[in-house]
C-alpha cells in the first residue's frame, strides 16, 4: 500500500467523522514526539504513558474540536495535539505535587538543570535551556530571543520544558519569587514579539 499522503489536519478531520484508521495514523505519526513531551515533564515511568493514553482518547473524542484557523492565523494540528498532551502532563504533575503535600521538588531529585533524573536512560537529557536554544534556532528567532537576559531565558525554559511553577523556578534558581514572575512574563512577551517579527503568530 502506498504511504498515506494526507496531512495531519486531514487525518484529524477524518477521525472527527469516526474514521478510526485515520486516528491510528494520527497516533503513528505523532506519538513519539508527544511521548517525548510527556516524558520531559513527568520523567520516565508509567505516568507519562498514562497521560499519553488519556490524551489520545481525548483527541479521538474531541477531534471535531480542532480549529485549523483562529482569527486568520493558521493553527497547525500538531500545536493542538501538543497543547492537549502538555495540559494533561501538567495536571498529572500538579496532582503528584498535591499528593506529596509539597509543591517543591526535592533538591536532590533534580539534576543541575532542574530535570528529573531519568533512570536507565543512556544519553543524558539536554537541559531546559539547551532545549530552548535548540527551539529558538529551529524557529529562526535565536538572535531575537538572545536579547533577553540569561536568567529570563532560563526561567522561561524551566517553566516550559519542566513544567515548574513560579515558586519551583524561584527555588531552583535561588532567585526571589517576584523577580522570577517578572522574568517569565518578559520572556513570554519577547517570544511573542520575536515570533511576530519572524512572520509567525502576531
Amino acid at each position, binding site marked *: 500500500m502506498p504511504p498515506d499522503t494526507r496531512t495531519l489536519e486531514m487525518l484529524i478531520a477524518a477521525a472527527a467523522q469516526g474514521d478510526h484508521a485515520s486516528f491510528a495514523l494520527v497516533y503513528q505519526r505523532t506519538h513519539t514526539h508527544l*511521548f517525548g513531551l510527556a516524558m520531559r515533564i513527568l520523567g520516565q515511568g508509567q505516568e507519562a504513558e498514562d497521560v499519553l493514553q488519556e490524551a489520545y482518547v481525548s483527541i479521538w473524542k474531541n477531534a471535531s474540536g480542532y480549529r485549523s484557523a483562529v482569527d486568520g492565523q493558521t493553527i497547525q494540528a500538531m500545536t493542538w495535539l501538543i497543547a492537549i498532551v502538555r495540559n494533561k502532563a501538567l495536571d498529572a504533575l500538579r496532582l503528584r505535587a498535591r499528593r506529596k503535600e509539597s509543591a517543591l521538588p526535592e533538591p536532590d531529585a533534580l539534576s543541575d538543570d532542574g530535570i528529573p533524573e531519568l533512570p536507565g536512560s543512556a544519553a543524558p537529557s539536554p537541559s531546559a535551556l539547551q532545549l530552548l536554544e535548540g527551539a529558538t534556532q*529551529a524557529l529562526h528567532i535565536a538572535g531575537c530571543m538572545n536579547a533577553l537576559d540569561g536568567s529570563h531565558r532560563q526561567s522561561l525554559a524551566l517553566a516550559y520544558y519542566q513544567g515548574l511553577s513560579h515558586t519551583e523556578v524561584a527555588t531552583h534558581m535561588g532567585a526571589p519569587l517576584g523577580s522570577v514572575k517578572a522574568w517569565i512574563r518578559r520572556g513570554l512577551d519577547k517570544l511573542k514579539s520575536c515570533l511576530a517579527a519572524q512572520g509567525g503568530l502576531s
Partner: protein
Amino acid sequence: MKYTHPALLDHLASAYVLGTLGGGARRRFERLLHDRSDVRMQVALWEARLGQLAVSIPERSPSPRLWSAIEARTRPGPAPAVTGAVAPGLRWLKPAGFGFGCFALGVLALGVLFVSAPALFISSDQLAMRSGEKLPQSYVGLLTDAQGQGKLLVSSLRHGKTLTVKVIGPITPPAGGRLVLWALPASGAALALGAVPSSGTAISVLPDTSEKLLSQVSKLQVTLETDGAPAHPSGTVVFSGNCAKLW
C-alpha cells in the same frame, strides 16, 4: 479582577498555557475560558506560540502496549472477530440482543434524565442547551457549490462576536487568490466575513455582534478574490447559500 482589559487577558492566557497560572487564578481563568470565545482564541494563539518550542524535545518511544490500550478504548463497536464468532444457529438472537441493548440504554438514559430533571428544569436556556434539548440562538448559514454539494457551515451566536466556518465538503484550494466569505444584506453593501479555510474549522472575530451585523442578511456567498482585502465581492462566486436565524 476585571477581565475586560485585552493586555491582562493576553497575559493570563500566556501564563495559563505555560502552566504558571496556579491555584484560584487558574480555576477562575478556566471558567472564563469556558464562557468566552475571545478568551479561547487568545489561548489558542498562545498554544500555537508555545507549542513551537516543543520542536527541540527529543522523541521517545512508549511501550507498544500503549496503542493497544488506546485502541481498546476508542475503536467503535465490537471487534470484528467477536461478531464473526456468533454461531449460525444463533444469528437470529443478534438483532433481538441489539434491540434489547438499545431498550436498556434508553431506559438508563431516561432514568438519568429523571434523576437530573430538577436541575434541568429550574434553570434557563443555558442549562437546556447544555443538556442538548435546545440549540443556542445563533445565525447559521449553509453554503453549497453550483451542483448543490454542501461545502461550508457558518455559525455565530446571536449576541457573540465570533464566527465559526466549518468545511463540510472537500474544497480544492484555489491556485491563485483566496476564498472570501461575504454577507449580503437585503439592501446595502456586502460585508466581508473573512477568509475560508481549505479544511477543518476556522474561527474569527467579528467587528461587532452578529445580531448587529447579520440581522438583515439573508444570503451568504464565497468569491474567489485576487485582491488581498477586497472592499466588495468582485471575483467569481464559488459557493452560495442562505443565512438563517436559529430561534
